């Protein structure tokens, strides 16, 4: 069976045919299945945002084809429109796109554009607000009167309300404090578990990617450099370094410990897990009498 989203030999250049032409995406092919949870990482300017803007036809590929649900999205106006609703794209700093009088109305903007009836719109707004963690008491206040983190959630809810088969989030945790970050990542994981929708998470943060996703795509200079499981990608520490990326600090510590001959696993991505492993290691050594 074909993957839900399939892009074939896609390239995209900004300011094509001028002196300042930038080849942001070069001959990329990839497929993402229904329900998959994928992380996309890459250095600043590597073309991540450009790549995801091709997923729902916000940008038209200079070369190559994008298929959503088996259909070429650029075939006609209708397929393009459908792709916007099937692939929900949420940009970096989405809070700056809020515009309605109330949060409720703003979340309803997407479903309204889908020409759904009022009851369905209302149902979707409530569900999306709940999924994104928008507090019910905030639904009827102006989106400009809530805090930055709450705005972010309201904006994400606005995309979730379209109930897309695939949700793409570009740097959803940018500019949040560590607590806000982990809460948001947790929310996204929950969203995927509860709705079964595919999720693509674009991020700089290896920690976030490791915590939330199963498959990681590494983009470098507009090309796919690595594509595979989290373990597979993080095992390529040197390659990642040459692309200006770093694996999580804890993971580095564990790789080093292993080199030194300690019996530790290489796939440690979070501090919590590290603490567990190290305590049990220490206890074992104590009981060994060393």
């Amino acid at each position, binding site marked *: 069976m074909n993957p839900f989203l399939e892009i074939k030999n896609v390239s995209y250049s900004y300011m094509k045919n001028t002196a300042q032409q930038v080849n942001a995406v070069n001959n990329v092919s990839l497929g993402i299945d229904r329900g998959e949870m994928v992380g996309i990482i890459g250095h600043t300017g590597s073309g991540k945002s450009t790549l995801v*803007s091709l997923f*729902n036809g*916000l940008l038209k590929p200079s070369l190559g084809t994008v298929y959503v649900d088996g259909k070429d999205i650029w075939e006609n106006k209708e397929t393009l*429109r459908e792709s*916007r*609703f099937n692939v*929900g*794209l*949420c*940009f970096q700093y*989405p809070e*700056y*796109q*809020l*515009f309605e009088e109330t949060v409720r109305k703003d979340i309803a*903007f*997407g479903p309204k*554009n*889908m020409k759904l009836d009022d009851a369905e719109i209302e149902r979707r707004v409530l569900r999306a607000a709940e999924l994104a963690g928008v507090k019910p008491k905030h639904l009827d206040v102006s989106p*400009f009167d809530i805090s930055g983190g709450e705005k972010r959630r309201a904006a994400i809810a*606005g*995309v979730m309300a*379209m109930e897309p088969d695939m949700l793409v989030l570009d740097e959803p945790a940018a500019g949040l404090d560590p607590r806000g970050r982990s809460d948001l990542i947790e929310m996204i994981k929950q969203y995927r578990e509860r709705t079964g929708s595919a999720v693509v998470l674009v991020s700089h943060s290896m920690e976030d990617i490791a915590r939330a996703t199963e498959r990681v795509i590494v983009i470098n200079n507009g090309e796919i450099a690595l594509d595979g499981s989290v373990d597979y990608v993080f095992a390529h520490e040197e390659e990642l370094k040459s692309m200006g990326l770093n694996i999580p600090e804890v993971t580095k510590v564990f790789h080093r410990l292993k080199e030194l001959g300690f019996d530790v696993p290489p796939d440690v991505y979070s501090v919590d897990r590290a603490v567990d492993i190290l305590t049990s290691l220490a206890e074992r050594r104590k009981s060994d009498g060393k």
Partner: protein
Amino acid sequence: MVSDITFGQYYHGNSVLHRADPRIKLILTFAMIIVIFLCKNFFSLGLLAAFIILVTLLSKVPVRMILKSIKPVLIILAFTAILNIFYTHGGRTYFEWWKIAVTEKGVNTAVFTIIRIIILVVMSSLLTYTTTPTMLTDGLERILSPLKIFHIKVSSLAMMMTLALRFIPTLIEEIERIMNAQKARGADLESGGLITRAKALVPIFIPLMVSAFRRAYELALAMTCRCYTDGNGRTRMKQMKLKITDYVMLILCIAITAGVIVLNIFFEKVI
């Protein structure tokens, strides 16, 4: 796309024109625009055209860029040409049909007006091609500084202008970003009648205003933090001093103006 619009287009270079004093460039451009309208026959206009070609060559701005600046006024050119050909009558008749007549005077006027407009456009775009927006406002500030005696805060005005110019590309980028975000939520900006389209702009316009105000506040705060009060008494990093080349340009322009006046007197009026 929105980003195709170029404002205050500056073309990087290091020609005589690029290095010239912005005050002189501003004043001379202004003066020569008036001279365009002093031209009364093809001889004086030809002299001016030759002058513009010389200046273009000196500026080292590629011809392609010059043509690009003429492109937006092509419609206006076509329109004036048609109006002049059909509505100005006199001299020999080349062509007549029903109530429409094409005469010598009509054709001459059309050609004359077209050349005038082209010179006008090329001249003003040469100014923006060779002068950065900051230099322009600096120059303008200095030229307008005598207005201080009327209690007009020239330095604040100049600062506002500099900031406005600085933020045009930022706002264009912002518009593009907001448009993409709303399109991703299925906003349809391209179809429907006038009212539907106007309504479709609301989701773009409101976030744009909000972010423009936010930026303005942040900028004001940042400027206050660095002790900006108003421009009075500020000294400049780049001092403006007239150089030999500036005087040469001034003299050249005076000579051209004199030439235009002389040619106007000696040859028959066309327009």
